[in-house]
């Protein structure tokens, strides 16, 4: 099953490689991983999307907790949560395609954030699933470039990941 694991870790050089190294050394999957500082400058928050059997996910959680730089770990998929990912897509936009691309962007509640006479750059946020569907909905040959952040997530309501 797919799991979204969120963790807080010390903002130390090398902390990221400890997490990445753990996944490769133990053969765990990483679908995506992102990390950025939090409002507390001593800590970074990382979101890892992974998959595996219940036993593997249990081990992943335990092994992450065991890393000295990791402050706290939460499997968001254990409860109610919100998942968002940001995607930027550059598409070839000439002639009739310009109108069609704009229409699709509106339907998916995206925004065109850069325009040239031949291209649009579209910004879209949502679940990974929604972003996939957008890419399927537009003509494949028009896609020049895509970049995605990988999922970020947060618990709903009182589910809070804090020290």
């Amino acid at each position, binding site marked *: 099953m797919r799991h979204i694991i969120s963790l807080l870790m010390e903002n130390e050089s*090398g902390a990221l*490689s*400890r997490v990445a*190294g753990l996944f490769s*050394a133990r053969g765990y999957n990483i679908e995506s991983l992102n990390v950025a500082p939090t409002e507390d400058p001593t800590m970074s928050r990382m979101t890892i999307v992974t998959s595996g059997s219940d*036993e593997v996910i249990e*081990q992943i959680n*335990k092994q992450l*907790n*065991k890393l000295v730089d990791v402050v706290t770990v939460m499997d968001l998929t254990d409860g109610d949560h919100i998942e968002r990912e940001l995607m930027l897509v550059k598409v070839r936009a000439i002639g009739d395609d310009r109108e069609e691309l704009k229409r699709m962007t509106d339907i998916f509640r995206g925004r065109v954030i850069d325009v040239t006479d031949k291209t649009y750059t579209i910004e879209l946020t949502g679940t990974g699933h929604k972003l996939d569907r957008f890419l399927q909905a537009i003509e494949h040959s028009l896609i020049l470039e895509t970049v995605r952040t990988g999922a970020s997530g947060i618990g709903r309501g009182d589910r809070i990941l804090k020290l």
Partner: protein
Amino acid sequence: MELTGAEITIRCLQEEGVEYVFGYPGGAVLFIYDELFKQEQVKHVLVRHEQAAVHAADGYARSTEKVGVALVTSGPGVTNAVTGIATAYLDSIPMVVISGQVPTSFIGEDAFQEVDAVGITRPCVKHNFLVKDAKDIAGTLKKAFYLAKSGRPGPVLVDIPKDVSNQKAEYSYPATVSIRSYNPQVQGDIGQIKRAAQMLLEAKRPMVYAGGGVILSDASKQLTELVRLLGAPCTNTLMGLGGFPASDNQFVGMLGMHGTYEANMGMQNCDVLLAVGARFDDRVIGNVAHFNSVPRKIIHIDIDPASISKRVKVDVSIVGDVGHVVSDLLSVLNSSKQKPDATALKDWWKQITEWRGANSLNYKNSSELIKPQYVIETLHKITHGDAFVTSDVGQHQMWAAQYYKFNKPRRWINSGGLGTMGFGLPAAMGVQLAHPGATVACVTGEGSIQMNIQELSTCKQYNLPIKIVALNNRYLGMVRQWQEFFHGNRYSHSYMDALPDFVKLAEAYGHVGILVEKPSDVEGALKEAFARKDDLVFLDFRTDSTENVYPMVPGGKGLSEVILAEDL
């Protein structure tokens, strides 16, 4: 008070009460060596190879309750140390390794003797640090010692660039240490402990499986009391030997790949299994599906939550330190009105006694060829079962584990997890330094001993009267055994040709060597060697080169699918 980074480093070691540092100098640690020179409290032992420095620190730690310390230079110093660090990591041994690094301004430039020490060691340390400022050295070393010995112990590397060791900074050694992201759980959950107690009291066929965690926790007294109270059979892993006295009737021997028949059958057929500081290693529970094919309840005590339900799912997990948890378990059991089921235990012991009757460690002695098992049994006799025994890796290691009956913890010093040939002699140096007057034997093979033979020179320099018991079978015996069993007797590169004359070699290093070729000379040679209290003696026993280690549960097989000596 302003001190240089090097002065601070040595002050910290003094504060930690470090008695010995095992090391080897080089450019990046020259300032640290200079400070070592100027003081006498911390003694330095100059090894002949950095791997040996780490193994010696490891042997020192295993035979005491202290943290081992090694000091190596940058680049090749660190890479040579890696095998030692990984050895300590796999067996959870508390250790601090200090490595020199190129000056901070050179880092990343492929500088002379630069390697990414933190990167290279990351997968085989509990934690590591690169210190970028002298003001951080004291705090980092304090954390390093704390991390190394608390929770599940392990090696910690502290990498200190050369300029940092020469930089001045304000010094004060922190009195306390706390790391917000690291809080090992020592006390076990009392609810879980009560559940465990109830389960054990209701057991018809209880079994205790105790591992290295008992030794690391210094909890063999509590474990022994618990086993006696439960009336259950007790087995030890290779790493747990000595955690429960081998001469006790409730001891059924080591379990696993080369465990006794009764221990493995007991594991397979018990109805409640109490695992104490043991991690269900693949050399212990060969085939998990086979193990799970019989129903049983499992209680697991371990300080590392990640050890629990890793390979084998358990029913009651108790995260905590063995000493604390077993003491609590004892008080719960002692205050319960219910007692272990005496009738059921009687039947269970009847069954165990029957398995014991298979006499799975029996071997046929010979008057022509020296049997390795006989050498170990005689070693046990001559040393009254009270020596510190270190070992290398191979058949000789298994025979030492099987036939030297350890009654005390921290007496059996071997590399179980990584299985590092070359561990035995340097580890024995650490043990001998930690226990100056004690009898220390290093059981080894002619293959393994050559992996760190240069340490005979260190032994001479520091007058370490270790007794090297080499079971010289002219083969990489353990490899040869697998080739005999599983590769059609094709002994591909497992024959040891062109061996040195070990007696002359020992003499060349200034020691005593004894060649033993006849079974009738075994006891006399051992007596003579151990009577030489002040000499290192190298005993070269020419043993039967075709002997195999039995019993054997082949890799991937179930615990009851065992090959016994008599089957062949």
